[in-house]
């Protein structure tokens, strides 16, 4: 074990290799490793964010679905109500119409009855005159009793 000038040479080698590591090995590797670490952290954060957004979207879609369901059931209820209303209205109109028709028919019947009565009246007078003529031909002059006949006609 003899210490000699090799010591100096080795110290120079050592210093050179420290310098190489300090200058060319460590900084680029450190940078690359730090950057990768940052990228991984970013990626994980982005994944977390995406997950969160997905949850929000799921919640939103569930909300929308529920809202749509509520709206549709509202619409159905409204439509049912409206249909009932329409039916009611139709019933009302139909009744009015029917009443009108019935009233018309009644009026017509009345008119008809009146006319028939009129005709009957006319005919009754004629028949009475004819009957009376036949009875009275023998004994009564028609012209002599005209005043009386007119009065009779008026009474009917």
């Amino acid at each position: 074990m003899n210490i000699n000038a090799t010591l100096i040479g080795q110290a120079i080698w050592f210093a050179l290799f420290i310098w190489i590591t300090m200058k060319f090995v460590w900084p680029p590797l450190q940078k690359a490793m730090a950057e990768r670490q940052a990228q991984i952290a970013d990626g994980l954060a982005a994944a977390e964010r995406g997950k969160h957004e997905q949850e929000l979207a799921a919640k939103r879609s569930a909300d929308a679905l529920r809202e749509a369901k509520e709206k549709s059931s509202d619409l159905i209820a409204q439509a049912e109500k409206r249909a009932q209303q329409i039916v009611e209205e139709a019933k009302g109109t139909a009744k009015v119409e029917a009443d009108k028709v019935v009233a018309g028919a009644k009026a017509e019947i009345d008119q008809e009855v009146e006319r028939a009565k009129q005709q009957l009246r006319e005919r009754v007078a004629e028949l009475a005159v004819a009957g009376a003529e036949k009875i009275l031909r023998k004994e009564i002059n028609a012209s002599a009793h005209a005043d009386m006949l007119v009065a009779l006609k008026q009474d009917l």
Partner: protein
Amino acid sequence: MSAEGGTTAYIQHHLTNLAVCADSAKVDGACSGFWTFHLDTLLVSGILGLVVFGLMAMLASKATSGVPSGGQNFVEMVVGLVDQQVRDTFHGKSALVTPLAITIFVWVFVMNAMDLIPVDFLPVALQAATGNHHLPFKFVPTTDPNLTFAMSITVFFISLFMGLKIKGFGHFMHEVFAVPFGLKLAPINLLFRIVEEIARPISLSLRLFGNMYAGEMVFILIALLGIYQLPLALPWELFHILIITLQAFVFMMLTIVYMSMAAESH
């Protein structure tokens, strides 16, 4: 195994560095004195470092924050492991500590990993290539205390400067002279501090050196067993995978601890 010389020569040959020095410094044809360079330690550690850090720098330059390639992923895994240790232990702010820890862990690991190549493979190949059958060449740089001391002393100076820079001169000096017994016992505090500061690099470097040297020694002894080395080499190799990783980790971890001690007030 070397052809001649016997067991002792074989072991000694394996534990000898390829030393170069000026001719004037040689004593009996062998290098001695301070101005000697262990060519094998310098070359193997340097080439390994250039290859592995060059590769890492290449992968890092192509690093993307998107899906990483297999190579980038591996480098990021290693670097991330080291960075995690730094984050857990070092609470100050420094652009140096993490790169320093990465450098130590990766470099010490690959140098230790040379130990997993069977002890005679590379030396014999090199001897055949150069034609010199007595050429000594240690392929595990961390078994050379020069390397481990160079690293631990560098770490020591970095921690010293970091302490001065982060705490400021006044605070640093106050800590040197007044902790732990107060200003009245300043000389004792200083002594404690010096012992503490010197013990750190020594223990740091000797721990790595001792572990790797002993591991290498066991490999050499196993290699001496001839055919019987086969059932022994494998378990020791597997166990050694644990040791080399652990030693690299311990060196890195202690460095981080020293840095955090230098940067934090007590």
